[in-house]
């Protein structure tokens, strides 16, 4: 379980996170939605210890990752998979090397076992047989799926997705949404999905949380979000420029 309490972060003059409280129960997928620039990606980076908050706590299985030293923090990180917005594949490596990097670094698996695992994960994301390709020759959707295969190489207990469908066509977005859903069912992973794509949010989320002005202003199931009278949520899910959220 991930429990975030009172998380605050100021970047320059802007208070990006201003007391975020969020619970992500074991085995559930929580979608964090909100306008661009509301600190959704910053929130994910705090959970991974890539950024340190000014205030607040982030507990992962009862371990507070805030201020954790590199060794123990890395042990927490090994339980996570992170799909970056642009996939963040290593250009200098092949697809196979990208997916196998954590296995080579953190396990004692033999090369043949690693090759087997890489092939299996590529099959899971529907990209069989592209181990020797370089990331530069892949399309946006393919990069996302390879990024996903890399993120799940170590069988993570937690998955963080940063804008998994941004920049993809609707069909590829649906492919990614189904993959996220199937991973949850296949390996029972606990996930946080950051997105402003409402189709994706409804499809993959067990719960939705809306971030506005550095705080979580709504949490509920997709059905509760659809029927809520909360003006912030209504304006966001209807994609209206008129309402309490000032443009």
């Amino acid at each position, binding site marked *: 379980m991930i429990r975030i309490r009172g998380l605050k972060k100021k970047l320059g003059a802007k208070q990006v996170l201003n007391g975020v409280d969020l619970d992500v129960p074991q085995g559930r997928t929580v979608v964090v939605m909100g306008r661009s620039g509301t600190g959704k990606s910053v929130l994910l*980076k705090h959970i*991974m*210890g*890539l950024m340190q908050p000014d205030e607040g706590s982030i507990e992962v299985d009862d371990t507070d990752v805030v201020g954790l030293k*590199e060794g123990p923090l*890395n*042990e927490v*990180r*090994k339980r*996570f998979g*992170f799909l*970056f*917005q*642009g996939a*963040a*594949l*290593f*250009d*200098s490596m092949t697809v196979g090397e990208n997916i196998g*990097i*954590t296995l080579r*670094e*953190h396990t004692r698996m033999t090369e043949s076992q690693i090759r087997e695992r890489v092939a299996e994960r590529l099959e899971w994301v529907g990209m069989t047989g592209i181990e020797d390709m370089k990331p530069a020759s892949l399309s946006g959707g393919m990069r996302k799926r390879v990024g996903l295969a890399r993120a799940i190489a170590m069988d993570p207990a937690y998955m963080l997705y940063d804008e998994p469908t941004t920049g993809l066509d609707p069909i590829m977005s649906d492919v990614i949404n189904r993959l996220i859903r199937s991973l949850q069912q296949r390996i029972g992973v606990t996930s946080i999905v950051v997105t402003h794509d409402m189709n994706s949010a409804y499809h993959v989320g067990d719960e939705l949380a809306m971030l506005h002005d550095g705080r979580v202003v709504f949490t509920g199931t997709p059905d509760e979000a659809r029927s809520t009278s909360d003006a912030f949520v209504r304006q966001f899910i209807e994609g209206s420029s008129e309402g309490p959220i000032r443009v």
Partner: protein
Amino acid sequence: MADDDSLTLRTYEAARTRVLDSIAEVGRITLLVIDTFRHSLRGLRAFRLVVDQMHMIGVQSLMLVFIVSLFTGAVSAVQAAYQFSTVVPLKYIGSVILRSVIIELGPVLTALIVGGRVGAAIAAELGTMRVTEQVDALESMAINPVRYLVVPRVVGAIVMLPLLTILANTIAVFGGYVVAVTSVGVSTHTYVTGLKQFFFMKDLWSGLIKAVFFGGIIGWMGCYYGFRTEGGAEGVGVATTRAVVSSCVLVLVSDYVLANVLFRFIFAE
């Protein structure tokens, strides 16, 4: 009067900020150097990464070093012949070329050209990795970026710079020989005798010790400015320029410091 005071205050504040930023920068570079040593043992275990960097830094610089060294030696011969005129016998031309090359020209020119090529390449690569979140990806996978990215590059540069310097010395002395024999009128025997007469092992060592330090400077500057890249393509361009400029300046400054330490203390007669 009030305008003058305000201008003075603003100038003072700007100067103060600049000084504090510079101190902070030196501090961050020092921390990177310490971090590199801290992670060097585990970093060296990934030997393939080090070999890749040695290939990129050393083997891919061979042609450039060859051309620059050949002409450096050739120009040294022409300049020596001109300056000797009737004052110094031409039999000393070999020893003058040899000593100026192995003490100064070989290590410094090699460091400057490799610093330009390799420092820029390292800063551009790591800068691009930074802005495309590849460095964050490494950290999120519990892989220390200093161990994985900095150690192989710095070690590669520290190992390859002395080797490139030995090559540069050899080629430059050969370039000097070709010019001395073909256009200055010195015989092969005279040139070689001059080389042998004033060759001191400590001269060669001093050049190679300098090269080790220059290699470290090139590696660390490229990595530091690459890691500090902000923004997109523009940020990568800025990082690349800073890496090259700082490498070149630091090579020259440290050359002066090392020359003092080596010839006044370590190899003092």
